[in-house]
């Protein structure tokens, strides 16, 4: 294969690839070293090998995908990439990127910045005074930050799930929503990570997770699983961006131009490039699903692998995976509704998308109820003293108002609104999704806190209520997410240009062909038509 012209971008891309492979090598070495160290300390070393094998395989695969993109997409571009055409329909999608923000957009961004600035002040205040400024105390050692951590990590799954599953399953209606979903996945992950730092007593010592990491600890699994997942999500957001960056490369000015040039890998829209990219995307889409499942299971196992009442349950891993999909799809619906209003994308993100996502949400709501009943029934019938104390506190005690709001928001509201075609409108799905997002946040809260308020021994346990610092930082997380999402729409088209075009030009015919192939009468050469032939 002939390599293309070697401008500066070629060398930067090559350096990036070397870096990615280097990272993979370092991670392999790290796991081997940790396994050896754990063995030396007469500790469990098998988790290091098992977890390490999985993580290293994923990283090697990511690096291979990028190498493939570098060779097969970048390598097939010859000379100066041409100006790719953008038609009238697509022009509307690029407004967010190419036109300056309206005053409304600026005002929203300013307001969000104020909240973020306040949250950063609160963070500084907490760092300089210690966690005494939170509502935490013995024995409620984890509360709002961990709730938010679980919540945000969960939301990210909605993004990857909708995008990856629908891509694999050739769900054509996905086309306008994949990019928005993938962006949600990446950005909320950052918020989840931030909450871990908020919760740590000594965030300055976080490097010890790497130089003394004990892979027997589920928390360390979390560290490596989420890190892998972040890389995977970024890759999965980035790959489908390549053609769009190629289309926008010559239309942006200033500092964005070299960046788009660098990251578009000399995209010319040639058929060979398209095929290579599609292949890379589908491999990543298949990979990201098990990684996401592992991440959310591990988040659940952090709780389930202790012996604490109502945490120590086999259902927690699957429950967290399901809850992640559930809350993620709901959050995606909310984000889509905001995007379509704020960026006037009503023609692209249409009621049919809300209709289908709403049905998905309804199915997930039913599954969620089933999991919730399984969990509670097991505890109730088992009637183990300490477990039952937590359950009673949830169902009829101090957490009952929250718990019943959760049940209404997560099940009854979606059931009411989404089971009928008449109410499964944009507004109906948005209201149901808001209920689900709030309900799922409460679900995380009522997993984390009640167990700790009911310790096994009769320790004097106070009731937890969050302090203004915790609430401010929670508001800051949401504001930060909004702000980063606004910046994302400013930098990249939030509806994929090339996927929409491909849908119009190629897939409409393909889908018709596929449907025809399902049935005997549509096929040009079938046994049924044999008799009629002359």
């Amino acid at each position, binding site marked *: 294969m002939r390599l293309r012209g070697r401008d500066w971008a070629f060398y930067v891309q090559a350096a990036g690839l070397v870096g990615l492979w280097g990272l993979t090598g370092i991670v392999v070495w790290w796991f081997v070293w940790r396994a050896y160290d754990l063995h030396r300390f007469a500790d469990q070393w098998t988790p290091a090998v098992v977890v390490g094998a999985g993580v290293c395989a994923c990283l090697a695969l990511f690096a291979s995908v990028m190498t493939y993109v570098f060779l097969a997409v970048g390598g097939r571009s010859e000379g100066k990439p041409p100006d790719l055409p953008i038609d009238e329909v697509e022009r509307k999608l690029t407004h967010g990127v190419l036109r300056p923000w309206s005053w409304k957009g600026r005002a929203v961004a300013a307001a969000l910045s104020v909240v973020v600035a306040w949250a950063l002040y609160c963070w500084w205040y907490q760092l300089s005074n210690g*966690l005494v400024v939170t509502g935490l105390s013995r024995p409620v050692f984890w509360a709002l930050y961990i709730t938010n951590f679980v919540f945000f990590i969960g939301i990210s799954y909605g993004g990857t799930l909708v995008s990856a599953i629908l891509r694999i399953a050739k769900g054509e209606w996905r086309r306008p929503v994949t990019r928005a979903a993938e962006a949600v996945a990446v950005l909320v992950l950052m918020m989840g990570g931030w909450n871990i730092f908020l*919760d*740590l007593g*000594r965030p300055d010592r976080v490097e*010890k*997770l790497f130089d003394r990491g004990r892979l027997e600890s589920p928390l360390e699994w979390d560290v490596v699983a989420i890190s892998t997942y972040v890389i995977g999500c970024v890759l999965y957001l980035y790959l489908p961006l390549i053609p769009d960056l190629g289309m926008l490369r010559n239309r942006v000015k200033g500092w964005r131009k070299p960046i788009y040039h660098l990251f578009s890998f000399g995209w010319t829209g040639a058929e060979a490039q398209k095929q290579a990219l599609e292949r890379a995307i589908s491999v990543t889409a298949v990979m990201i699903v098990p990684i996401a499942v592992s991440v959310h299971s591990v988040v659940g196992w952090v709780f389930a692998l202790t012996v*604490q009442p109502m945490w120590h349950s086999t259902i927690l891993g699957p429950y967290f995976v399901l809850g992640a999909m559930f809350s993620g799809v709901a959050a995606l619906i909310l984000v889509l509704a905001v995007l379509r209003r704020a960026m006037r994308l009503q023609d692209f993100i249409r009621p049919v998308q809300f209709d289908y996502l709403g049905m998905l949400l309804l199915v997930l709501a039913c599954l969620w109820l089933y999991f919730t009943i399984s969990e509670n029934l097991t505890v109730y019938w088992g009637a183990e003293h300490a477990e039952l104390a937590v359950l009673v506190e949830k169902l009829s005690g101090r957490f009952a108002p929250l718990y019943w709001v959760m049940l209404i928001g997560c099940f009854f509201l979606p059931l009411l609104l989404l089971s009928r075609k008449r109410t499964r409108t944009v507004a109906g799905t948005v209201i149901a999704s808001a209920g689900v997002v709030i309900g799922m946040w409460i679900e995380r809260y009522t997993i984390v806190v009640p167990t700790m308020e009911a*310790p096994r021994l*009769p320790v004097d346990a106070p009731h937890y209520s969050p302090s203004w610092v915790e609430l401010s930082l929670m508001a800051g997380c949401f504001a930060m997410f909004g702000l980063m999402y606004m910046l994302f729409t400013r930098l990249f088209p939030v509806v994929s240009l090339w996927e929409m075009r491909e849908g119009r030009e190629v897939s409409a015919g393909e889908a018709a062909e596929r449907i025809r192939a399902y049935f005997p009468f549509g096929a040009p050469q079938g046994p049924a038509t044999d008799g009629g032939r002359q």
Partner: protein
Amino acid sequence: MSRWGMRIDLDRCTACGACAVACAQENNVPLGQPAKAFQHLVRWLELLPVKRGEYPRADVRVFPMPCQHCDKPPCTKVCPVYATYRSPEGLVPQIYPQCIGCRYCVNACPYTCKYYNWEDPQWPEPMERGLNPDVSIRTRGVTEKCNFCLHRLQKARDAAAIDGKELDPKDYRPACQVICPTEAIFLGDIDDPSGDVASAREDPRAMRLLEELGTEPKITYLKERGP
């Protein structure tokens, strides 16, 4: 090698609380202050009141609760950074400079025996001069707990080594044991069959807390004989 365990005879215990005071004094645990929330206090040894029966036949049994030093500790399993571990002698100490303050071990402990430093430790004016030089002071943001006065074990072992002898288990006595006026608390080698702790474990009055969880705690409580 010794495996250290403790027996606490509830029949002898008068719930005077001297062990809790001596423990705090010995291990540089900050004092409670009126302005400080009760739940932010650190108490390596707590007197846990366990209620029995209902009014009017209510009764309270007080358990002096140091760390249980489990043989299968749930806390060390979950530590991501080697800040806590089970030593070959069965002790479960905490390494303060290694701790990142994630509080996972605290939440994994079914005995609620681990404490977290919500803020920097403070002592009123003259108390600061009376700190124990053998025990490090913990900063805010780390977890701490009873370690059976590990420094006393080291001192006893050093003293024995100077005399060229093996450590006599009788020389290793934690602060709570030393102060206890009724000799309710006794620390010794579980594996020594002639020892007091080993025989206490065979006593019909012996019980261990939350034994059903399989943590194998090394503190043996001896229940009261009848009234």
